């Protein structure tokens, strides 16, 4: 049984089903509230939700019970320093780290939180918060967001972040110091003479290949890029895609040469009437449209950066994406064919997939 955690503008929806079948809504939580992101920590099964209450502000909640049993607890410490000029706007992502009880959360305004007690208490990463370049980071239409966090398998000291719009950030010392990893990324929305030194790079999503951790893929504001040196430099691999704009990128954990993206038009940020997921299996040298079963006319979908996810790997790779139209599409065969998983949900902000057996999650999607 696959579990889908669907963060929507009107609450968390939990869907269960088998690949290839229509999924059933099995639970709801935070009814009516914007759920920006939800994930289950595979290590203990704890469920997390990032909720931006229009009244009480942004918060991380967690539960060890069923999602609809009312046992959600607010995590402590998810806040900026008191008395400053800024307030936390939103939590964009929550990711399990590479040490017992370690989790990370990224948010707006360009902040990283860390927890070492399974997500009950959190601490702001002060080195990133006080980074001397912060004044040059740019808030884009989605805010100033740490939206991608890529741990290095087996090494809790190494981490890559992506910030929109402040580029790629790397640490090798557990977040004590941070360096930029922007070489090769071209921001054509900036004047040509400033591009080489630009810091306000609008990375839309970043993922690390778990089987070859020095390799990362990113979807940029214009272009898809690959790094083979742990994020220090980047090569444009977008040739062959119909549009260079898009938000999410998903990898097959079994294949470090794989990546999936959903190109959308630069002008209006939606699919151009027909929907296709594009796949590479040669690290971006070539791309193939995976559109069988997806709408091919009158379909202008907006798929946000956290709304494309994978479960399992290799020949059993499952892929799922959700749109702001409230539709979810899935594939149980690594994108070879697609089908409608769910319709008529509220606007989808995030989607994570995991595997459930007899009520227990046993495997989760990468990241």
């Amino acid at each position: 049984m696959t579990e889908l955690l669907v963060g929507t503008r009107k609450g968390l929806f939990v869907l269960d089903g088998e690949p290839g079948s229509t999924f059933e809504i099995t639970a709801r939580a935070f009814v009516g509230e914007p759920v920006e992101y939800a994930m289950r920590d595979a290590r203990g099964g704890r469920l997390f939700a990032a909720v931006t209450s229009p009244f009480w502000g942004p918060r991380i909640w967690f539960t060890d019970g069923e999602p609809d049993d009312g046992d959600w607890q607010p995590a402590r410490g998810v806040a900026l320093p008191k008395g400053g000029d800024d307030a936390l706007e939103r939590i964009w992502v929550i990711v399990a780290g590479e040490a017992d009880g370690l989790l990370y959360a990224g948010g707006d305004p360009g902040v990283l939180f860390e927890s070492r007690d399974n997500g009950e208490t959190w601490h702001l990463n002060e080195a990133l918060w006080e980074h001397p370049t912060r004044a040059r980071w740019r808030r884009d239409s989605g805010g100033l967001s740490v939206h991608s966090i890529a741990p290095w398998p087996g090494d809790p000291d190494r981490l890559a972040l992506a910030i929109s719009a402040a580029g790629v950030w790397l640490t090798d010392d557990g977040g004590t110091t941070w360096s930029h990893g922007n070489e090769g990324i071209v921001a054509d929305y900036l004047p040509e003479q400033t591009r080489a030194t630009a810091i306000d790079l609008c990375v839309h999503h970043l993922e690390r290949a778990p089987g070859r951790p020095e390799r990362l893929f990113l979807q940029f504001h214009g272009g898809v890029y690959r790094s083979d040196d742990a994020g220090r430099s980047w090569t444009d691999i977008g040739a062959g895609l119909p549009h260079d704009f898009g938000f999410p990128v998903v990898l097959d954990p079994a294949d470090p040469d794989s990546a999936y993206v959903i190109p959308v038009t630069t002008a209006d940020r939606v699919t151009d009437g027909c929907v296709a997921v594009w796949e590479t299996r040669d690290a971006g040298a070539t791309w193939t449209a995976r559109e069988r079963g997806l709408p091919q006319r009158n379909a202008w979908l907006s798929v946000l950066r956290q709304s494309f996810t994978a479960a399992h790997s290799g020949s059993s790779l499952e892929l799922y994406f959700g749109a702001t139209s409230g539709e979810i599409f899935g594939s149980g065969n690594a994108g070879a064919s697609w089908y409608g998983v769910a319709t008529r949900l509220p606007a989808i902000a995030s989607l994570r997939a995991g595997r459930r057996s007899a009520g227990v999650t046993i495997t989760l999607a990468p990241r």
Partner: protein
Amino acid sequence: MAIVRLRGQLEKLAGSSELAVAGTTVADLLQALEQEHSGLEGWILDERGVLRRHVNVFVNGEPAKPDNLIAETDTIEILPAISGG
């Protein structure tokens, strides 16, 4: 001390629907409320100390602003604003 009445999520976090809190202004009182009841920290005031945008404060049934003065006999209610759309 003034009486603060809480409902819903705030009542659950504070463990009580009615609390006695000191303060000369609404802002003072809200800061004291969050300091004395740590479960409420950050729920009413953001990190800047600013009243969250969609939270309404009433003093003796009348809408109040952060700089409104508070008397010891006052009753304060903290409620989510009307919203929709």
